């Protein structure tokens, strides 16, 4: 990362420690350093969230490379990622903007801020039932109500010791990758 730059919007300086932590977390999950990004923008040209939401992975990479990690964490952009993995697939340097954004979102969440969208509900459902949702009653194309039983499907499997499951997963909430 480069030194001596100042973000003239809020006069912030690059954060070397944060950058090093990010590099370490990426290394643990087998992803290369953001430093190797040479801004070819191939990630952005293929990005599924670019056309509608104007997510630009290469510009996130540029901010990260310059050490402005907090600015990236605060940006709403990181929540626009679809997770389609085209950026990772096509990066000529084998860097992974999508995994970098996952780590940055994890940091946002662990800082105690309000989690956007329905993520909070997803998490609560998993903690209380083991799954993101319980079996729904649905209508078929003739508007007939159907459920697992009426369709002849066996009961859905779930964690046997739900209490212990909830406790274990909750404990992980405070765990980082390092």
């Amino acid at each position, binding site marked *: 990362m480069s030194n001596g730059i100042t973000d003239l919007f809020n006069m912030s300086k690059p954060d070397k420690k944060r950058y090093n932590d990010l590099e370490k977390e990426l290394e*643990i*999950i*087998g992803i290369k350093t953001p430093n190797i990004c040479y801004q070819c923008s191939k990630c952005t040209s293929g990005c*599924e*969230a670019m056309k*509608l*939401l104007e997510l630009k992975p290469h510009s996130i990479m540029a901010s990260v490379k310059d050490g402005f990690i907090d600015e990236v964490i605060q940006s709403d952009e990181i*929540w626009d990622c*679809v*997770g*389609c*993995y*085209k950026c*990772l*697939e096509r990066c000529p340097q*084998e860097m992974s903007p999508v995994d970098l954004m*996952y780590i940055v*979102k*994890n940091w946002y*969440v*662990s800082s105690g801020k309000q*989690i*956007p*969208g*329905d*993520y909070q509900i*997803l*998490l609560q459902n*998993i903690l209380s039932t*083991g*799954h*993101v*949702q*319980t*079996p*729904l009653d*649905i209508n*078929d*194309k003739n508007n*007939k109500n159907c459920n*697992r039983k009426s*369709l002849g*499907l*066996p009961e*859905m*499997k*779930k*964690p*046997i*010791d739900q209490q*212990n*499951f909830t*406790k*274990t*997963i909750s404990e*992980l*909430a405070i*765990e*980082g*990758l390092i």
Partner: protein
Amino acid sequence: MKELGLFLGCTIPTEQYGYEMSIREIMPEFDLKLIDLDNVSCCGAPLRSINLMMQMYLSARNIAICESKNLDMYVPCSQCHLSIIETINRLKNSDKLREKISKKLKDAEDLDYKGNLEVYHTLDLLYDKIGIKSIKKKVKNPINWNIACHYGCHTVRYSDIKRPDRAEHPNKMEEIIKAIGGKSQDYSEKLNCCGAPLMITHKDSALTKAGEKIKAIQDRNFDAISIVCPFGGRMMDSKQKMAADTIGEKINMPVFYLTQLVGIAMDKKEDKLGLNLNLMYEDIVDK
């Protein structure tokens, strides 16, 4: 008869019943016995944005449950399949992660994680394990439609780890469609995303993505869409009318799970394949 541990994840057994029914209906015909795994939970994939440790723990947990039965795993959901293959890979490459997660699994739930099992998806199970020849032998009622194949992002990416098909030029589904009597061609939007993950934060954008892709397929005069991922089913079939409204277009495109199409070709009964659950399916069978 080979036994496989069936891991359905969350979306298939709670709403995409047609996928589950057709899987249970056709797989035994190919000498595969599916064993429902007790005690399983979410694969963790939806929690990637919240906490990667949680995601890997949940994937490793389900892997360990399957390994405790000495079974290989069949994971028909592409998102679950990616999360599970990715976790096996990450724990293999990092001693630190493996030790941390195996210790937690042992201490908290008395589970032993090894990460040595085979993990199949519908696509590689049909194409590689069962094979085109065996599928052809079972065809009694060739389908004879022109099918657009929608693979889904997580089915094919990313190629650093083992995926059911190639990332940029997948063709296993087309081959299976041809084997059961259908036709299929490439189309420019083939690798486009269905928008499903955006439903969590940007519903309109998600529905726009789905609508635009289905519209493009319809404009190319395909008879139907074939999918192998429950999120494709949710976005392209269950929410097709909403997607059409969102982009302000008229769309009416039947969507089938590949397993349903194989079932139709095998002359299985409609109600056993859950065809009445496909909201956009009308009289294409008589076409």
